[in-house]
């Protein structure tokens, strides 16, 4: 590991100021950063821990079931939160898919998102939750919808000094489900990930959201498939068509894990399956 300067600021403005420097990296849970530093794929000159800044972790639910998740909330906490399990099942299921229990006790949801891996397991769940990402910076801050956060593998709209502070999840009144395609039962990386969320009104789909991971340079929403579903009765045939539409929206790569073609096929299969379960849960 290369030498670096380590800071533990206690306020967000201080952290933001430090993070605005060149070659600076934020340390949240460290489960991505430290591995990268050991492998010399990450060589920050400045590492800024967010651990000492109060108020960045925890899950809170208001009277209208709007949920806020602090960026420094442990993935394990997201997985075990009864409110998230109930209202944003796909997100809790995604959290459960990350690494081992030991990893989930260290890793944070903010880190999982800010790392901007197209294969991040919490991202599809946040996409279908229509989450807003609150961002702090020296000049105040802003909010960005989760589907506008990512610009490429490892790339986001975050500017130097900008720090994700929390995720705001509106009351969903929907059922959702996440499936990760993988080889190993646990502790595997997503070959692809699919989350679907569905709101029903009198047996008709009022709103549907489909979030896809590891099938494009960034996590994406399958909007055409979503539109296809809107206002219709969720027959198996309709869900199958949505699967095909979702697959058509992807632009996956072939790599050592599997081919682009297989990824597309699995988007088709798993979109249908997650929709089936989401409808049942709605």
């Amino acid at each position, binding site marked *: 590991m290369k030498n670096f300067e380590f800071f533990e600021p206690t306020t967000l403005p201080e952290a933001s100021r430090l993070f605005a420097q060149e070659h600076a990296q934020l340390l949240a849970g460290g489960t991505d950063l430290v591995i990268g530093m050991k492998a010399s794929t990450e060589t920050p000159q400045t590492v800024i821990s967010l651990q000492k800044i109060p108020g960045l972790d925890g899950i809170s639910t208001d009277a209208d079931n709007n949920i806020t998740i602090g960026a420094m909330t442990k993935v394990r906490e997201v997985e075990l939160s009864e409110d998230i399990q109930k209202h944003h099942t796909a997100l809790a299921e995604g959290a459960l898919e990350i690494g081992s229990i030991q990893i989930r006790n260290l890793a944070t949801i903010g880190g999982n998102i800010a790392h901007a891996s197209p294969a991040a397991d919490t991202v599809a769940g946040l996409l279908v939750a229509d989450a807003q990402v609150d961002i702090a910076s020296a000049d105040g801050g802003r909010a960005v919808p989760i589907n506008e956060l990512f610009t490429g593998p490892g790339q986001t709209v975050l500017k130097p000094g900008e720090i994700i502070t929390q995720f705001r999840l509106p009351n969903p009144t929907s059922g959702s489900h996440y499936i990760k395609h993988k*080889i190993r*039962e646990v502790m595997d990386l997503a070959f692809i990930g699919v989350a679907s969320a569905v709101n029903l009104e009198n047996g008709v789909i009022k709103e549907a959201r489909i979030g896809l991971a590891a099938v494009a340079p960034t996590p994406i929403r399958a909007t055409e498939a979503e539109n296809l579903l809107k206002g219709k009765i969720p027959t198996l045939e309709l869900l199958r068509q949505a699967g095909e539409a979702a697959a058509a929206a992807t632009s996956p790569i072939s790599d*050592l894990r*599997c081919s682009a073609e297989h990824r597309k096929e699995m988007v088709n299969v798993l979109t249908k399956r997650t929709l089936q379960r989401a409808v049942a849960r709605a």
Partner: protein
Amino acid sequence: MSEYNVVGQKLPRVDAVEKVTGAAQYGADVHPAGMLYGKVVRSKQAHANILSIDTSEAEKLPGVRAIVTQEDVPSGSRIFATDKVLYLGEPIAAVAATDPDIAEEAAELIKIEYEVLPVVQDVMEAIKSDAPRLHGDATKDGPNRRDIITKIKQLSDNQEVDNNEEIRKLEAELEKYSDEIYYNISAETHNAAGDVEKGFAESDIVVEDTYVIPRVHQTYMEPHVSVASADSSGKVTVWASTQGPFAIRSGIAGRLGIPLTQINVIGTTMGGGFGGRFGVIITHVPAVLLSQKAGRPVRVQMTREEEFLDGRPAPGCVIKLKTGATKDGHILARQALAFWDSGSVSGASIGSTIRVRGVYKIPNIRIDAYGVHTNKSGTAAYRAPGAPQAIFAGESQLDEIAEKIGMDPVKFRLMNMREEGDAVPAGGSEPKVGYKETLEAVADAAGWWNRDADENQGWGVAVGDWTNGCGPGGVYVSVHEDGSARIFHGSMDITGTDTAITQIIAEILTIPYKNVTIRRGDTDSAPYSTGSGGSVVTFTMGNTAKLAAEDARNRILELASERLNTNADNLELREGAVHTITADPPKSITLGELAAFSLSTTGGPIVGKGSFARKPSTPALAAQIAKVEVDPDTGRTRVLKLVASQDVGFAINPMAVEGQIEGGVVQGYAWAMMEEMQYGENGNINPGFVDYRVPTSADLPTVESVIVEVPAPNGPYGAKGVGEPPITPTLATMANAVRDAVGIRITELPIKPEKVVEALKNNGHKA
């Protein structure tokens, strides 16, 4: 009730407490004063000429204490690449520094200029005439060319008749097989019995297929590590994480020209070996060279990435297999043509191709096997080297035949299995082995005969055979004044072998297991011991331990005879004391009393010595049944049931035996379903546990083990080696179960979801 008190019992391992509490000393726990950290500088190219090596910048880095290259190897034995690298990660130099980060930085500062050469990593490409050549090997001929050339030679040798026309015809035919001129061949082996052509001609059913098995890593938990300390007198001490300290001692002596007894190898607690922990040049020799140059102890420890780049994994291979049988189920002939991926050096276990024969009566058999050079690291043993690959091909194809004949796969195997007294092709006759008993036991335990399966579920069966090795060993046992005994020996504990040795000695001395302790010496102090691999330890060291305990017992009876004033044949040793058989009143004396008495006798203390080298071993069979469910849309396979039986001869510690069965089955499952070293244009592309998947406990149900005991005549208490057999059939068990579940035959491992989806699509399945 067993006739034994200690052997045959499920007793806790002698090293259980030190392992569980973390007290056990592994290689990385060794830290002599002044120790430096070594780092091997590795090739960044899979195939290249080295134009220059410049260490000058690295030498200037503060904290660097030694840099070694091939120029520092006085014997000339090749440790580091000089003019050419043959694989990604090949060692070119090594550095030692006061801190691991400095060592790493220094390694990066060593400038190596390459002239990149074309790379070949696929065996079937490497044998072609247009493939890049790794060495200047002579070409070798394939089976048809070999046959024709033999015929031509016979005809030419016969001077009495004019054969010229026939020879010309054969020479013309030879031309047709120009694709059977193989390049990059490291080794070849050929076996034949009977006449396969005749056998295939007489067969009603002939099945032919090509099986592709990937290169896999042993993935022991502890990466290679050694700490070497060379003192000013030239004496070298090496703390080595190895399966064979004595082999490492002779290896270092041979490689570096150091006198054998100037080297002391201390075996540290081993974090798994599986056959991959015998190599001497991987870390031990670089550590010694660095310590000699720096004058301080040096640790060389591999990262997991280095393990994948420069470990010695199990070879992958391509096996073209053909089997013929009659429609009533008799196998008549089998022929294999195999290409083993040996990597940059020879050494792949090509001889194991013969294991496609299995344990069946096959009158006509022919094997042609070749080791092939590719731009990868060399290979080494992995749990029954070569057998899982060959048996995957053999047992997969057997199911295809059974299917075509319409016979139950278990019955088909039982019908063809060899029996005691059958002639063995290599000579002699088949010993008594529980082939049928073991297969019947697993079928009964799994519920094979009334098996049920829902949609997309299926059952698979396969058997695999292996015979334990044998080697030299020595054991001392001392009996102390408190009646306890201590064992001293030099073999590395692997999978609980120290426990088995302890149980055997406690049994013979009739004292409680907890009153026997065991100590391992280093190569300076302990008697010679064979390496702990090839399932040898319980067989060899068990026999050695028995001899040592019996020797001690003789001295005990001699002392008791003197003490109790009676003949030794009127004495028996039981429950830790010697008793008279006929005496009124009966007399007895404890081992402790005898040990105390021995100290003031002419004969001296009770010290038993056992020394043993070899006796013929007996084959062992492992039989397994799996029930799986395949998701036809995603291609994922879940194991619902996994039952494994094994003829172990005699289970000295049934708990340890079950552990071995479970471990072997899980490694076989992993090889079948997920493990695979993958190669891109410039070498290995999955050097870590993110993309080289080993299973977790969530992937498998509890493995049910069934122990079958058909004693081996020369094994201690009838025991056979148990470590290797259980991995041998699992690859085929899984493939056969998937075939039964969804009707697809996967011949190229691992059985990844994508392959299953692809095969099902080709079968007409639509998601």
